[in-house]
């Protein structure tokens, strides 16, 4: 058991923070959000140069072999800087699935472009009726000769409006499978959706889209299981992103209350406000603990993975909301205006609470796991494998 970051990890953390501080300040970020595409190609290729896009992938796939901890450090920095580019959707989610399920050719082709920054795949899985039941999809794939015909609707595809390739899930003989579908495939309609956090997604409709047999990803694999595991990696990353935002919120609040003078002294000199900021700090500490457990659980056996990941999403959803609300309150009217990043952090946390499972969904999922007394009473320390 060791929970200290390695020197390499601390270096990565520092460089990630510095890069975004220098190249992605709030003003720049707002320009990107307001732009035509809602995406900055320059930043994306700089991320490629920094190796962020290669980070989680194995060396044999051209990656850097980074683990969940390295990802968590990037995500904290992304949270603080409110990055709208699809690191989570394309690298962690879609890229991760390709690495798990793809054939050697598929990995080489898709991950190659992804790591180079020239291609951005997106997963199109959940549907309107799915709720939190990942198996509940209606899209179908019908084999006809050498091709598959895919039909279905995939709303709110994360990273969809920046994607050139979609990994579309559909039922093949009643079994969930993934298919690689080019963004410009005939019969594929993509509608851009502006999101509450300033980023963009797509509503996809597939009407008899034909793809070659080679488009099937991981023919033999338990695709649904891998999709769930990928969602858990995403949720661990979201937990770390939220922690980054919470730290940014308390930093901003401390700074503002020190500088804002009312009744002849800085707000930070009022004990009632001091204690409320201290309570915010308590929540930030706890959130950090939860997120770290999620991070260190993504490769654990499924029940432990769920305990770590859904536990973090449930707890952080609740306490990050209250930290954001307090940050607004302690900023007073300024916190209610779009001129400070407070509201943008608040809205991103709100989006996190409602994506890849809501806070309530994750609490329920966690609750089902700890109904087993062995899980509830078990130590977090694990035996070596």
């Amino acid at each position, binding site marked *: 058991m060791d929970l200290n970051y390695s020197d390499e990890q601390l270096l990565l953390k520092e460089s990630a923070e510095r890069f975004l501080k220098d190249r992605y300040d709030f003003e720049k970020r707002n320009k990107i959000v307001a732009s035509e595409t809602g995406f900055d190609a320059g930043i994306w290729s700089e991320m490629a140069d920094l190796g962020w896009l290669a980070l989680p992938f194995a060396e044999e796939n051209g990656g850097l072999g980074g683990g969940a901890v390295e990802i968590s450090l990037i995500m904290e920095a992304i949270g603080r800087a409110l990055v709208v580019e699809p690191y989570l959707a394309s690298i962690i989610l879609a890229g991760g699935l390709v690495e798990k399920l793809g054939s050697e050719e598929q990995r080489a082709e898709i991950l190659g472009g992804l790591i180079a920054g020239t291609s951005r795949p997106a997963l199109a899985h959940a549907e309107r009726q799915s*709720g939190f039941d990942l198996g509940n999809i209606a899209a179908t794939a019908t084999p006809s000769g050498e091709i598959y015909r895919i039909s279905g609707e995939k709303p709110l595809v994360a990273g969809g409006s920046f994607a050139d390739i979609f990994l579309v899930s559909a039922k093949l003989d009643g079994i969930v499978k993934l298919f690689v579908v080019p963004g410009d495939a005939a019969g594929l309609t993509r509608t851009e959706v502006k999101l509450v956090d300033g980023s963009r997604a797509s509503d996809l409709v597939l009407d008899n889209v034909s793809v070659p047999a080679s488009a099937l990803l991981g023919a033999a694999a338990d695709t649904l299981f891998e999709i769930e595991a990928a969602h858990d990696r995403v949720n661990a990353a979201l937990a770390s992103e939220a922690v980054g935002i919470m730290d940014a919120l308390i930093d901003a609040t401390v700074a503002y209350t020190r500088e804002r003078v009312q*009744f002849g002294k800085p707000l930070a000199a009022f004990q*009632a406000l001091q204690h409320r900021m201290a309570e915010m700090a308590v929540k930030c500490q706890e959130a950090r603990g939860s997120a770290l457990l999620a991070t260190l659980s993504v490769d654990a056996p499924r029940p432990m993975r769920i305990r770590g990941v859904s536990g973090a999403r449930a707890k952080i959803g609740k306490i990050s909301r209250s930290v954001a609300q307090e940050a607004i309150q302690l900023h007073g009217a300024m916190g209610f*205006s779009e001129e400070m990043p407070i509201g943008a952090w608040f809205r991103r946390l709100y989006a996190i*609470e409602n994506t890849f499972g*809501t806070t309530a969904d994750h609490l329920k999922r966690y609750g089902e796991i700890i109904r087993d007394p062995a899980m509830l009473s078990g130590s977090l320390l694990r035996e070596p494998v």
Partner: protein
Amino acid sequence: MDLLMTEEEVRFRNEVRTFLDGHLDDDLKRAERLNPSFLADPAIGLKWQAKLNDKGWAAPSWPKQYGGTGWTLAERYIFDQECERAGEPHFRGASIKMIAPVIMRYGNEAQKSFYLSRILSGEDLWAQGYSEPGSGSDLASLKSRAVLDGDQYIVNGSKIWSTLAHHATRMFALVRTADTGKKQEGITFILIDLTSPGVTIRPIRSICGTHEFNQVFFDDVKVPVSDRIGEEGEGWDIAKYLLEFERGGAFAGGVLRAMLTRLHRLASQPLPDGRTMIDDPLFMARLAEIATDVDANDMLELSAMSKVQAGGNPGSVPSSTMKIERSRIRQSIAELAASILGPDALRFEEHRPLHELPEESDIDEERTVASAVYFNSRSQSIFGGSNEIQLEIIAKTLLR
């Protein structure tokens, strides 16, 4: 002691209902449902105010002599409840509820006869000019300055968070006319024509996506002395009178119950994934908790009303309690509503006003506006005397 209406009050309630059924048209109701902010879009608000004015009901709290209704507190309470129940656009703001009582109490005859009727007719829409970039809770530290020059003041400085100033014709403002003595003593209350040269307005977008607030700059703006309310240095007393008025006076029970009822309707519709939230025990428990909060607040409002009717005053602890609890209840309802949107919470419609968008079903429109309503609700505990200020008031009373 009882909660019974008199026969007359029942008749009055029915008259109000009949009027609302007949005059509060669907387009107005829809615009209000789709409005995430404090006040209605002025186009909507003024349209509704005109209908009320035709009936003589535009200013429920005004005495008859000024064109008001002359209603009893109980009648005003019933009117408010019925209007909220029916979903009227909220537009009784700074004009009718703030500057008007000030003019009635402190204005001279000329000011009364000129300004009050223009408020009722909608010719004038007023903005508040209190807060400044450097003066929020600590209002008395304000720095905007008015210097007397013959029969006019030359005003320089800036006011912020002025609701709807970009639609308003006039602003009532607290300005500094002297630096001697206590800082409260140098403050004067003046009326500024926002069409005057030297006035510029900068929009401030709120985190709910609406442009409702503004910063207003004054650069050598001329204000005739005849547009001063009361004497020089009397501004602080006038402001205190108004803050008290703003705090204790208004009813919120009606709007809270209306929001709760809308949430109940929203939760009664099946979600895309087939669940119906009203059958979810956690949701129902939370809804029930909030409903008990609304009941309690109603009782506090009715108790305060009874005290005033009996010639007493509600007291600062109940008044500040109501201010705090109303903000929290409103925030809880909005937060609970937003929490049941699921993934659709991510979709955010930026167009304002929302009612300009093509019509959807009631429920879809509730879902469209729910996130913005939640974001907007966070301001409830900040504006009009923050909850921290209310806690200070209560603590001072407890420890007096």
